[in-house]
């Protein structure tokens, strides 16, 4: 069982706490993503698992084996690097065979396993090619084959798709996910692209300034962000702050700018609250349509319309409050400057504990 247990991991670079007391349990066969902006410590954390950065404190176990004291070449992790790191002096097959030779696998078996690995990444007849003859996407596949062929306990991917163009990125992430699932390998995936993280992960850890902000499945992270940072980093969100003016059962009326919103919270009037509301949870009401039972509504005016194909993004002003709205409905009728009614389901509002 190749689950990964990280306990109390610290790493400091000069005055910067790059990784600050991180503990994680990554389950066997899981694709676990470290997501965060640059400098949040996600790559440092990955490199500590690989052994290229030494932790100051803490431990890393793979299964029952403690690996944080092992030199990197004995950790049995397969790593895919951001710039692929394909050896330019070896052919594609030579690159893939590299780790097998280091493990003194007999030549006939090397040949068999290299062919199988190249088949896995759909590069069957490319073994004799040189790296400079390959495209970026093909190099990426070679890097993947090279990491997988040694049948590592853990697959580490360090922003593997950031050097590819957008279309290829979408294609390759699907392929990485397919391979990871079919091989049942435990994988840690580092990225700053939230869409990528949501698309392929079993679970995601959002990192900020060396700390874990939230760990959860993509849907948990998206729909129930634990902190304003997590809400803002994943997807688009209306992040608002206001003061409670009245309590109504399990709800409060929250004053934000010059508007009042219904929010599911039980705090005394006068307290401050932060809330997050996804754009798709705000609905435009046609003039004659009634407001659904239990929903709140605001009178507003359309400031900007952005048609994106499958959905339309709107910027809508309710008094001094500006809100982002996303809708999949056809909004041919609405124009900039139109007066509209905005409705929202208070149950969809995320309320953050006061800091």
């Amino acid at each position, binding site marked *: 069982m190749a689950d990964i247990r990280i306990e109390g991991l610290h790493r400091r670079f000069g005055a910067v706490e790059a990784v600050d007391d991180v503990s994680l349990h990554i389950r066997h066969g899981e694709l676990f993503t470290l997501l965060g902006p640059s400098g949040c410590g996600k790559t440092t954390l990955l490199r500590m698992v690989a052994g290229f950065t*030494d932790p100051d404190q803490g431990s890393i176990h793979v299964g029952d084996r403690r690996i944080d004291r092992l030199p990197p*070449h004995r950790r049995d992790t397969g790593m895919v690097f951001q710039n692929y*790191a394909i050896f330019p002096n070896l052919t594609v097959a030579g690159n893939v065979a590299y780790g097998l030779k280091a493990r003194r696998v007999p030549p006939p078996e090397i040949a068999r396993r290299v062919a199988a690995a190249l088949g896995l990444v759909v590069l069957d007849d490319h073994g004799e090619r040189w790296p400079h003859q390959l495209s970026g996407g093909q190099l990426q596949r070679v890097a993947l084959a090279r990491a997988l062929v040694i049948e590592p306990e853990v697959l580490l991917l360090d922003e593997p798709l950031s050097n590819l163009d957008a279309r290829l990125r979408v294609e390759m992430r699907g392929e990485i996910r397919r391979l990871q699932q079919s091989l049942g390998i435990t994988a840690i995936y580092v990225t700053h692209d939230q869409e990528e993280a949501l698309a392929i992960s079993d679970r995601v850890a959002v990192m900020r300034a060396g700390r874990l902000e939230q760990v959860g499945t993509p849907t948990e992270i998206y729909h129930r962000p634990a902190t304003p940072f997590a809400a803002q980093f994943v997807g688009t969100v209306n992040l608002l702050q206001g003061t409670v003016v009245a309590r109504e059962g399990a709800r409060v009326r929250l004053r934000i700018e010059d508007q009042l919103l219904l929010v599911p919270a039980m705090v005394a009037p006068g307290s401050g609250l932060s809330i997050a509301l996804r754009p798709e949870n705000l609905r435009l009401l046609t003039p004659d349509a009634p407001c659904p039972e239990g929903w709140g509504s605001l009178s507003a005016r359309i400031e900007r319309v952005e048609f994106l194909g499958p959905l339309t993004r709107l910027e809508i002003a309710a008094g001094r409050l500006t809100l982002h709205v996303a809708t999949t409905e056809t909004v041919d009728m609405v124009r900039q400057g139109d007066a509209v009614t905005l409705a929202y389901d208070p149950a969809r509002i995320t309320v953050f504990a006061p800091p």
Partner: protein
Amino acid sequence: MRALGVRSAFPFGVTLIAFILLALFLIYPLAQVLVASLLDPTGTTLTFANYGRVLGIAFYRAGLINSLTLGAGAAAISVVVGVPMAFCLARLPIVGRNWLLAIAALPLVLPSFVGAYAWVMLLGRSGIVTQALASVGLPSLSIYGMPGLTLVFALHSFPYVLLPTVAAFKAIDQSMEEASLNLGATRIATFWRVQLPIALPAVLAGALLVFVETIENFGVPFLLAEDRPILAVQAYKLFVGEVGANPASAGVLSMLLVFCTVAALLVQRRYLARRRFSTAARSQPPELVVGAAGRIGATVYCWGMVLLALVPFAVVVVISFMPFRGPVLHPGFTIDNFIVLIDRASRPLLNTLGLASAATLAATLVGLPIGYVLVRYRSALAGILDSLSMTPLAVAGTVLGIGFVLAFNAGWLVLTGGWLVLAIVYAVRKLPFNVRAASAILHQIEPSLEEASINLGVSPARTFVQLTLPLMIGGVVGGMVLTWVAIVSELSATIVLYSGPWATMTIVMFQALEGGSPGVASAAATVLIAVTLVPLLLVYRLLRRHELSLT
């Protein structure tokens, strides 16, 4: 605190060894020169009186001023010649540009005093051009004195400005000039206000190199300065002592020389190094459209300058196959000059080849690990190591030679009189180049390649042997050839340090010039040119591939 692990033991060890070697073979000899400059005539007390005394003599004051004037003049001319040429080569449709770029660096590698000697053959008192001009009754141009010296230095070293400036112009993204033009500036205003300022750090860095190389040079002023004092020459003359050696005064002149070069290099490091504009051009900016006249003009100008710098060497080669009677050249073809040379100088030729090989090996063995540490282990320690390994750049060959004599002539470590002292001095002088070459090569090898290898199960030591080394080897060989070639034409430290059986080819040529045997001198010059050019031609492709430059 982490314990000193294996990973920090390697850089620490390299730094320690480098420090010991440089302390012994650079700092200690230099300290001896400093002490010599400070000792009073009784040799017991340290005093600044020597500086006052030497600088009180108008002749030596003139030496200091002449050296600085020469350096500044050569640098200024190099900029005036090199910058327009660089712009032409970077942006205009020059005929045969790739060939031109390939040979533009040659003046830097060909021995400068051979070039100076060639100018004497052409424009000296009994030079070919001088006599031709005299025969038709025209006044001759003098190659002697300050203007001639400045020109010879500028022609020898303008590629120091040219090459980095070409690269700088090429690295400016096209959008910069498009933005400028779009905002209403003319092409000429764009050059002055956008392109030149962006390239300026590279230009000035090159100009400083010209300055340093010029004031350190020994052979050229020895041939062309006549009775005008030049620091590097006077330090040597005072030290060797035609009328009795004077180490105190020689020490003072040496230290003045060191101060000048150190000041120039500190400006380079502290000021210029930080002013590199990052101009990541996505692609090379396109050629500008000019008419036929512009194209021809630019081509003639660029080829003209490079050929003007190289023609003297061709002339020397031709002359070496012509008969001399006494000092006078006669038309005809002969190989007598070479027969005399081989008779007199087969041992020095072997000395040159052997010493250059030994010193190259030493400089590589020390420089390569230092370069590796500098690139792969960034730390405060690496910063110290970087400064330390660049120090030899600031020390003129003459000064280092004097230091070696003072330090290793007697006492606990005697080196003078043998071959080892020459090999060591060469290795020390070429260490900065080797370190930078190794760094340049390593910068082209992504660290993630090594990490990928380690991650796949190959230990760091074996990764270095089976992955890093093969990737580096071409560049290392190229760097070794460049080092070897530079050592072959070393004169300034050799002249102070050589002894009887260990004379080199440069010494043979030097003595032939002093002794009035122009035939032998030209043959020796031809041999030096051949020994320099042939290895370069052999590894030319290697140098291009690894982007190793002679600067």
